[in-house]
């Protein structure tokens, strides 16, 4: 077996098995730190041993067994942490032979511990990427542009709270489930968004490794709770947005807006998969289910991705979906997007009028000024458009977006003054 073959096998096992191995160790030993350290040691051992011994026929089982032995070794070495009785029970207790269904359920429990509502949101994100995604501390720190030490502290504090406050390793009660799933979905969507429009100047504008990881975790969640409409909706939403990624960056590193994207670059397989999921939810809604915000957002993106050109977009359907969204989510961001859609249906002047009503609430938000600049440009109010672009550029934290906005501003044609005001 070649070095590359081994490396690939370890990578694949890491991607596919990490969460399951950690979850099964947490269930058995009830200790996140121990589970994570033992899993990491098992992978390190695989890197040493597989080149000589060959890749085992069932890498997942090999890694689980190795990790379990490592964990027991650790407990033996640190008997101060555990009394003899406990050690004996763990070492000679029933060997992990849980059926597949339960193992998958295990992974879901792990997601729920990491996303426990008693933890701070940034700790939930970090812990999910660490424990469920298997990302290293420096990787997570880099993704969120904080120093390693800060990210390490967040994870350490979260783990300490889980242990000290005794956050249970179990599924939440049935009545808590909808609320807890919505917290999990928020965490996954945050991870995705950070990848999709990364903040800060020191990073790539689009972090594919984060969007990909968010999609992988959401896929896992969807497989575990296939009947949850919002989990389905979020997966569809991510797939439909990620499908457009190849067209989102120009060769010059500018973000390309939806109206200027080369739609031939879109990923048809992801679009087909996302639209299938949207259709599945539409059928459920027709049968009486109430769609939540991710399902509606996914439906909006399904409309965008089914148009072959920007002009061919069914804007009135998008507007209707934003109206539906506004009924369950009164946030000004939703109102902003509705205004943008209304400009396509009712004209730039109508859209701008709707937009101006949000001026006081959204003055600090770059996308508000970018949308306003765009409509002002369409109405020929060049000088005002220039000012709005400047404000948007000043407010955005994403360098590729700033470059795109600067490009749009510099392409403005028109008298610098004296236009209609």
């Amino acid at each position, binding site marked *: 077996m070649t070095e590359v073959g081994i490396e690939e096998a370890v990578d694949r096992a890491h991607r596919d098995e990490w969460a399951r191995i950690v979850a099964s160790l947490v269930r058995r030993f009830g200790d996140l730190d121990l589970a994570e350290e033992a899993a990491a040691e098992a992978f390190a051992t695989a890197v040493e041993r597989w080149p000589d011994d060959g890749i085992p026929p069932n890498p997942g089982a090999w890694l689980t067994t190795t990790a379990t032995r490592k964990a027991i070794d650790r407990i033996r070495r640190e008997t101060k942490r555990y009394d003899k009785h406990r050690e004996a029970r763990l070492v000679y207790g029933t060997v992990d032979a849980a059926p597949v269904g339960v193992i998958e359920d295990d992974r879901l429990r792990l997601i729920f511990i990491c996303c426990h509502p008693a933890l701070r949101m940034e700790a939930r994100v970090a812990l999910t990427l660490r424990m469920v995604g298997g990302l290293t501390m420096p990787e997570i720190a880099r993704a969120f542009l904080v120093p390693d030490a800060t990210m390490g502290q967040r994870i350490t504090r979260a783990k300490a709270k889980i242990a000290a406050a005794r956050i*249970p390793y179990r599924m*939440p*009660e049935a009545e808590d489930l909808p609320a807890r799933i919505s917290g999990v979905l928020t965490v996954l969507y945050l991870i995705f968004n950070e990848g999709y429009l990364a903040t800060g100047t020191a990073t790539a504008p689009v972090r594919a490794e984060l969007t990909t990881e968010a999609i992988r975790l959401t896929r896992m969640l969807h497989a575990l709770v296939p009947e949850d409409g919002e989990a389905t909706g979020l997966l569809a939403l991510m797939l439909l947005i990620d499908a457009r990624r190849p067209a989102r960056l120009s060769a010059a590193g500018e973000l390309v807006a939806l109206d200027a994207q080369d739609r031939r670059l879109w990923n048809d397989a992801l679009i087909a998969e996302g639209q299938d999921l949207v259709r599945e939810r539409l059928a459920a809604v027709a049968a009486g289910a109430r769609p939540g915000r991710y399902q509606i957002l996914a439906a909006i993106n399904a409309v965008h991705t089914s148009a072959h050109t920007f002009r061919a977009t069914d804007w009135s359907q998008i507007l209707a979906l934003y109206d539906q969204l506004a009924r369950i989510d009164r946030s000004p961001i939703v109102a902003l997007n509705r205004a943008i859609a209304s400009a396509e249906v009712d004209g730039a002047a109508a859209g701008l009028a709707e937009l101006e009503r949000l001026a006081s609430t959204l003055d600090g938000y770059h996308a508000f000024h970018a949308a306003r600049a765009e409509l002002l440009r369409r109405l020929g109010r060049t000088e005002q458009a220039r000012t709005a672009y400047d404000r948007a550029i000043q407010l955005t934290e994403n360098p590729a977006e700033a470059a795109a906005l600067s490009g749009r501003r510099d392409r403005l044609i028109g008298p610098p003054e004296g236009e209609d005001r």
Partner: protein
Amino acid sequence: MQYLVFVIADEHDSTSVDRRPAISEFNRRLMSEGYWVFAGGLASAETSTVVDNRDGQPVLTDGPFVESKEYLDGIWIWNAPDLDVALRLAAEASQICDRQIEVRPFATP
């Protein structure tokens, strides 16, 4: 696992309704279900006195050790198997007392 449960009062709390009967009822339930260890309401924060004898010179200060809009109104000690159980009880307690509730585990050695 024992949890200290703080009942937090603040300026916004309504005081028109007498919540004591409902709280007593809740306490009886905590006892019958095995969660109850201790409960006590506190007199107002102004009645508090802070003693500092760290230098061997006792200094008494009138009032609580932090000045804030929120103050401690009462405490419970509960015995609960895990945080989720404690939080579910706290959610009920918050509604019954019409107060915010802080749940903190006792440190385990």
